[in-house]
């Protein structure tokens, strides 16, 4: 395979009056773990569908493993594995039979199929459930088997659409560990997520997508660098947090004060933040401080900076729409 595993130029897709994806360009190097990070409806799944041959782009070119898929979206199917956001396995088949069937779709012979299925069931902690119908699996089990099915043929390029959404913390951690292992073994991974910390922890490079457009792409290290030396503190206080921001800025010129949402003040500084004097200052003005918390600057800050969308707002919206399976 050549050095660039996925190359996308001018990709666009419209559904009725919704421009789901617009003018998207990026390239993913072979062996890279590339994160595609964005809020609900940003166009992540639509992009994956266009890259994996399930949707036809309105415009733009797609090259997967050097193969031009623009004319025939299914030209590179033998190079890719796909783990969709919702399971697409057969509810009436057992876990084992599902894996064997998927292996057969890639032309694997009987003995090899069974061996590989057994190996993956073991790897994903599903050996005990191998003989049960997939339809009766729990969400986390379903997700793990869906990932196993996606890598059954050891694809050099893997697409993962929100692999940890809607499953519990332990399952999510296990899934992340498995993604890390695949990455170590050289698989190129295209991962969509709306969990910023997940992207930061796993990915080499990240693209932020909002409303169908990429608003920033860079190495995680480069993205984190400008905020790494920053001190950030979040103060929850009521009432009148908004009005206090101006006064605080005047009284503490070294601090950068903002009001990200009603009832909370965000302080940023290059040097240690004087917590005591700050709290005194706020309480002296009749507001009650319920919490003052130091936060580690992260991709979240960058995300907010370049998209203008609060990560909490993004998560809330996601939870409202329900973890999908």
């Amino acid at each position, binding site marked *: 395979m050549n050095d660039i595993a996925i190359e996308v130029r001018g990709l666009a897709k419209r559904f009725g009056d919704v421009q789901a994806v617009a003018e998207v360009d990026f390239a993913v190097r072979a062996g890279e773990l590339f994160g595609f990070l964005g809020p609900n409806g940003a166009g992540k799944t639509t992009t994956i569908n266009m890259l994996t041959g399930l949707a036809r782009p309105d415009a733009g070119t797609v090259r997967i493993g050097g193969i031009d898929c623009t004319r025939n979206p299914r030209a590179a199917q033998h190079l890719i594995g796909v783990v969709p956001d919702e399971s697409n396995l057969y509810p009436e088949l057992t876990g084992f039979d599902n894996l064997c069937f998927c292996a057969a779709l*890639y032309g694997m012979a009987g003995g090899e199929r069974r061996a590989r299925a057994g190996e993956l069931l073991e790897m994903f902690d599903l050996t005990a459930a191998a003989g049960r119908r997939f339809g009766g699996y729990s969400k986390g089990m379903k997700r793990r088997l869906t990932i196993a099915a996606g890598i059954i043929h050891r694809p050099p390029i893997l697409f993962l659409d929100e692999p940890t959404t809607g499953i519990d913390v332990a399952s999510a951690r296990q899934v992340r560990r498995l993604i890390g292992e695949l990455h170590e073994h050289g698989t190129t991974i295209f991962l969509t997520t709306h969990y910023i910390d997940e992207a930061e922890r796993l990915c080499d490079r990240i693209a932020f997508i909002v409303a169908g457009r990429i608003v920033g792409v860079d190495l995680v290290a480069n993205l984190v660098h400008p905020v790494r030396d920053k001190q950030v503190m979040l103060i929850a206080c009521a009432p009148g947090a908004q009005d206090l921001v101006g006064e605080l800025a005047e009284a503490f010129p070294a601090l950068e004060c903002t009001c990200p949402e009603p009832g909370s003040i965000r302080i940023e500084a290059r040097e240690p933040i004087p917590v005591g004097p700050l709290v005194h200052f706020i309480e002296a003005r009749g507001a009650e401080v319920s919490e003052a918390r130091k936060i580690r600057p992260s991709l979240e800050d960058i995300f907010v900076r370049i998209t203008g969308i609060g990560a909490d707002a993004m998560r809330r919206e996601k939870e409202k729409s329900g973890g999908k399976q």
Partner: protein
Amino acid sequence: MKLWIAFWNIVAKDFRTYYLKPPNISWGLIFPFAWTGMFFIRSGRGLESIADILPGVIALSILFGTTSLLSVTVTFEKKNRSFERLLLAPIPLELLMLAKTGGAILFGVVNAFVPVAMAAFLVNPLRVDWLVFVPAVFLISVASTFLGLFIAVAVSEVFEAQTFSNFFRFPMIFLCGLFFPVSALPVFLRPLAYVLPLTYGADMLHGAIHGGNVMPFAVDLAALAGFCVVLFMVSLYNVRRRWIA
């Protein structure tokens, strides 16, 4: 070789999960029983009329058997997204759709022999020109399956597939010369008969069972084969246009 593994496993999976399920098996048996019984009672002529109604019963068995299955193997799997799993696999679309229809074609052929077996039990001896009968059954099965495929990819809900197939199936019972010749139809309906594949299939079956065909077998064969190709190509086009959209 590798594609063959994929092809065979798709067919085998459909057989295991859909075709060999008790409801389908009993349907395959009850249907010909019901039709044979109904016409037997209705005609009131006794056992000698069985050879006259047998072609119609066979054709309907195949038509209903195959078309109802496609709404499950295709429309239902599209709806619950497992069809995506197939679209993601490195299998040419033509082969994939042949695999999804292969099981139904086989099921149609097997269904056709149920009424034949019943008739052989009742009429002794049942004289059938197998050289005409076998290709006829096979082509009717392929054409009906592809009609089912055409319907299955044109809709997005299973119930739509059922309703839409009835739109084709029920008129075919009367228009295709199954139980009375096309010439007995009102003149303005006759052209309609000739744009339906079953007319040609039924004609062959009449020929094979009691020598009552009205068109040369070559015409029947060519027409049936033509319907098969056109229905399959249109279905493929629809999958490319609507499902990889």
